[in-house]
């Protein structure tokens, strides 16, 4: 393999990994904070992409994309926040909450999917990328949209890390995640903090949707793949630390990019699953540990 080819595969793997990280981080933060797997997370990505498409296509060009990048996450934040009260809050004292929330979030996923179909129809759409052409770096040329995607993805992840670590609200979210009883005992508004968590997760999903929608076509069932990829990343990497699923996402992205090049698009998923099963056989708690539930 030539060095140039290797570099291109590396870059496409990193761009892909960044997107997977952005999708998975919402799933992981909700899991570590509330202790449920949100199976509607994929449809959050899809709904975010459709709202962004609606906004960007009516305005057009880079300003349209920019406005979509603002409105889609805000809308999804509100939807996610409200959905906490419908999907999770009613069952919070039930010992079977993990299983019950699988059902309620799956139900929400199928309802959102039908709504998308109802509002936007079954035809495929694509969000117009705000930048076009290539960037020349040291004699190599990279797609400008790929670079933008990568930079924004990293920025959002860093922003989220900063928010959780340094802001007062983030601190309260970590506290409620770590010791719900103590948080309640001390009079924190835990329900609000949990709803915020889902809202923020949904907003990051929307940004992922915006970028995926600008490099691929979107259709109403478009959320299935992001959900699958996020689950793989979270189980593969574990959630011992905020960065665990992020690192795992980049590994998954790179594996995918290389196996597409070496074995073709057709075999890439099988290779990914094969490697994942091997990792989980050796380290059932995930690559970076699953047990310690912290953010």
């Amino acid at each position: 393999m030539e060095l140039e080819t290797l570099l291109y595969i590396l870059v496409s793997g990193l761009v892909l990994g960044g997107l997977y990280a952005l999708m998975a981080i919402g799933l992981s933060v909700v899991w570590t904070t509330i202790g449920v797997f949100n199976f509607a997370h994929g449809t959050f990505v899809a709904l975010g992409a459709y709202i962004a498409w609606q906004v960007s296509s009516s305005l057009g060009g880079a300003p349209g994309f920019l406005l979509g990048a603002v409105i889609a996450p805000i809308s999804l934040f509100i939807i996610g926040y409200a959905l906490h009260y419908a999907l999770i809050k009613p069952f919070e004292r039930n010992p079977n909450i993990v299983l019950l929330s699988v059902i309620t979030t799956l139900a929400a996923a199928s309802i959102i999917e039908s709504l998308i179909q109802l509002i936007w129809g079954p035809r495929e759409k694509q969000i117009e990328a705000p930048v076009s052409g290539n960037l020349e770096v040291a004699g190599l040329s990279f797609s400008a949209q790929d670079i933008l995607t990568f930079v924004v993805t990293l920025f959002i992840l860093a922003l989220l890390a900063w928010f959780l670590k340094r802001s007062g609200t983030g601190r309260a979210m970590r506290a409620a995640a770590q010791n719900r009883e103590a948080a309640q005992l001390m009079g924190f508004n835990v329900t609000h903090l949990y709803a915020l968590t889902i809202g923020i997760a949904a907003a990051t999903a929307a940004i992922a949707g915006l970028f995926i929608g600008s490099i691929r076509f979107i259709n109403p069932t478009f959320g299935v793949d992001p959900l699958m990829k996020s689950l793989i990343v979270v189980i593969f990497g574990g959630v011992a630390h905020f960065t665990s699923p992020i690192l795992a996402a980049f590994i998954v992205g790179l594996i995918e990019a290389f196996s597409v090049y070496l074995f073709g698009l057709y075999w890439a998923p099988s290779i990914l699953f094969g490697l994942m099963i091997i990792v989980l056989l050796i380290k059932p708690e995930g690559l970076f540990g699953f047990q310690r539930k912290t953010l």
Partner: protein
Amino acid sequence: MSDFLKIQGLGKSFGALRAVHDMSFSVGKGEILGIAGPNGSGKSTLFNLITKIPFPADSGQIFLDGKRIDRLSNTALTKLGVIRTFQREALFGSLSCIDNILVAVEQTSGVRGREAERLADEASDIVGFPKNFHNMPAAALPVFYQKQLMITTAVAQNPRVLLLDEPASSLIDSEIDWVRDAIMTLNKRGITILLIEHILSLLTGVSDRLLVMEQGQKIALGDAAEVIRDPVVIEAFLGKPQ
């Protein structure tokens, strides 16, 4: 002494169990009121009812400095300076000590940012909680320092009335002495203190007066030395003499 904190007919039932029943007493400004009673006599519940954390009373009235406060929200009570600690270690183990103090200050009194950090620093100085522990996870601290952290957290919320729920339980003698000194230091700063404690020497050592509870009711209130000689109190703790 003036009635700084006045409790009137406070009550709370859990089903058929009267955890606190028709409780009335007053605490003077700057006073230390000790509270004793057998296990399950309703001491911690009394603190819950006064602070509304985590739940309010079924009946009764509470006055602070002449103003009725039992209808206020628990955050409003915190802002007024009615602050409590918890009997169980109510800490966030994976969060750093400073985050533990900050999150309580931010969530309960609504103070944020630099001001919250200033309060946390000031409280650590007052209590004597070592600042080189600030960036360690709370779970990594020995129990004694976890207790210090809980008191520091309470002090950072600017208490005028501080309710301490067994701050010295499971500590050794030298550590209990530290708790005694800390209580006296806080009291000298003008903080009115209600102290629940099973360690009688600590309780009688610092308290101006002693309140004894049994089955949710007040059975004695007065000078500590007299109260512990009261036959009714002795019976409550030791059972009826044969």
